[in-house]
């Protein structure tokens, strides 16, 4: 009896904690706080080097703001579908959860696809990782972000497939919530990148 209870103490996703926040959720928040500094350093490097490229192409030569706006909107929409996925699993509606999880992953993939298309175009226009400081800082910043998105998509698809084995249920919906936190974070970072890199007008 006691043994069963003890097992549940460990396995329950609602074990008692000193702060009241479950361990995994607190861990995800701390990780995201740490990730803020990662992107902070990358964005700072970009900003500090803005306008310092000695040769082109320069941002205004390659950026297609309308296109990037659309892909940004796609990523934003994926945050909405993520919220819907979480709401579904929290009320026990697993089929809906799967639908919205898949939608989120697909929208994420569309975003990544848009990035790939964009970078290929830039590459053809002569902007590579090593062309100039703009290429260096731009690709590394957006590349780190894209990698974060890709990892997020992997997690979403994992949740999706695990749910078929009965491993994602209303009882452990916090797992979905935590992946959602990560996904929203990645989206917010993109808002910042899009604003700072694409929208804020710069010189050459």
């Amino acid at each position, binding site marked *: 009896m*006691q*043994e069963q*209870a*003890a*097992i549940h*103490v*460990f*396995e329950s*996703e609602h074990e008692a*904690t*000193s*702060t009241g*926040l479950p*361990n*995994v959720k*607190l*861990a995800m928040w*701390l*990780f995201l*706080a*740490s*990730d803020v*500094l*990662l992107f*902070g*350093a*990358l964005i700072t*490097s970009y900003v*500090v*080097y803005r306008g*310092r*490229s*000695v*040769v082109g192409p320069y941002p205004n030569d390659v950026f297609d703001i309308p296109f990037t706006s659309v892909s940004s909107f796609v990523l934003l929409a994926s945050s909405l579908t993520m919220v819907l996925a979480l709401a579904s699993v929290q009320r026990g509606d697993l089929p809906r959860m799967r639908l919205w999880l898949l939608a989120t992953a697909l929208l994420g993939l569309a975003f990544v696809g848009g990035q790939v298309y964009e970078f290929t175009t830039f590459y053809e226009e002569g902007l590579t*990782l*090593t062309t*100039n*400081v703009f290429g*260096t*800082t731009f690709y*590394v910043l957006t590349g780190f972000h894209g990698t974060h998105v890709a990892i997020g998509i992997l997690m979403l698809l*994992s949740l999706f497939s*695990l749910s078929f084995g*009965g*491993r*994602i*249920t209303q*009882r*452990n919906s*916090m*797992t979905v919530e*935590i992946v959602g936190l990560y996904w929203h974070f990645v989206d917010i970072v993109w808002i910042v990148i899009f604003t700072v890199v694409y929208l804020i007008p710069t010189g050459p």
Partner: protein
Amino acid sequence: MASVSVPTTGGRAGGLLRRPTATTGFWSWVTTVDHKKIGILYGVTAFAFFIVGGTEALLIRLQLAQPDQALLSPSVYNEIFTMHGITMVFLVVMPLSAAFINYLIPLMIGARDVAFPRLNALSYWLFLFAGIFIYSSWFLGGAPNGGWFGYAPNAVLDPTRGMTFYAIGLLMAGVASTVSAINIAVTILNMRAPGMTLFRMPVFAWMSLVVQFLLAFSLPIITVALFQLLFDKRFGTHFFDSVAGADPVLWQHLFWLFGHPEVYILILPAMGIVSEILPTFARKPLFGYQFVVFSGIAIGFIGFGVWVHHMYAVGLGPIANTAFGISTIIIAVPTGVKIFNWLGTMWKGDLTFPTPMLFAIGFVAMFVIGGLSGVTHSVVPADYQQTDTYYIVAHFHYVLFGGAIFGLFGGMYYWWPKVFGRKLNEGLGKVHFWLMLIGFNLTFGPMHVLGLQGMPRRIQTYPEELGLTFWNLVSTVGAFMIALAVLLFLINVAMTQRKPKAMDADPWDARTLEWLTTSPPPEHNFDEIPTVHALDEAWHRKYVETAPGRVVPVPAGGSGADEAASAGHGVHLPAPSYYPVVASLGVLLLGYGVVFSWWLAGVGAVVMLAGLYAWALEPSVE
């Protein structure tokens, strides 16, 4: 325990995902997720690196003992001093601190393990493999040779592979520490025993908490810098390329934005250890507990605002230098507060001086010197003379060796009985302390003079005419005394571990929860998680207050260690796992792959991902 909470199919998952079962022997250590075993692994590994880093130091001192020597050529010398720095910072002091944090935090806060035991194991294996990776560079094209601080453009333009190994190795170690930081922070915040509010936590736990936040916020910055360095070397990007319009100084900003919080990461755990030892051997509580805690927090915060003091001579201009000169001067204040509170702890105490106490007092004495030379650095124009000379080398060795290492040795002597069930030999311990104290001061004291009188850092040799010979020779003699002292410690350990385990729960009459359980503790730490009613809970169970400030022992029968040798009925512990090692191995292969072959990198990535997936999906219980 599944960190992603995925319900199991009742513990019958067979095949690949079966959990390991060894509880003793080699494999039990490889698959352990027990914080105590992991702490011991950290400690032993870090100490092994200490011997290696110390040997590198002896080589440096031999080369510099006389002018115009060529015992070590410039290329070898540059590798040795670089590896000495990398080893001592990343492979010795940080993991030694991690050893104490891992072993003690759950015990001190009344928990059975950390929040994420497998993640804890991952941190250890990643650290070990990072160390192996960096050291393997000696055989694979040259060790890092650009200084532990790896300034661009020199680090980028160096034609050997050394600085590539540096970047990747430190990235690995950085992931290990970041993951550990999150783990320990969650543990301290979330898993305290009932009644243990934050202000009833031992100071060591508080300092550890601050350190985890420092790690979590500073490591990402150096991660970015290391990627930038790696990309510049490996892919020809232009992060530090002045010809392309970039700024080599960006590296310095990013490095020191990490580097300065890093030095507080290196010192705060040792300060926490000293804050536990002094009250025990003064038989009084820590003086000004809240002030010691708050000063630690203040140091953590302000520590993010002083980084340019490593760059006063870079040419950022008088305004920047002034701003950071002032912030650096300010950080001396909370540091001083700690020193005074330690003195206050000893004041009017009933002082005895077993070896742990000697090292704790030694810490205070040596740290004061290092702190004062630090204050002289904050006087910016004076730093124009001091920077990049042996005066700086003197400063940081006083705080990191005289400070951190002395504190960590104190901790070893103090907690050895708890961890291993035996006390280290007192006589040998005292000789170790005095020999090390004298040797240490002989080694680094003269460096103050050498620096002010013209000896720059990182030079393979110096000409006779500079008049630096005498103190360099003295310094070398001192270094060998330190080596002898360390040897004595190793002999002490060997002798001690042969003795049978026969130790009380509380041999020092101490104050914190770990002394309530057996020595060594059972795997489940406590038979019953203690309920905490006050700061220094263990002390209050032994002594009761009869008048303000006056205590007498609790009458017999009521107390002391409430452990019985029971077998931990009904406590279920997290099962061991293969996957932390597997995932870490994947990362190691990935690292070699980035240097040598993209196929290998691919294999490494696959192994790592497979390890992580298996980890997420393996059953929680057998």
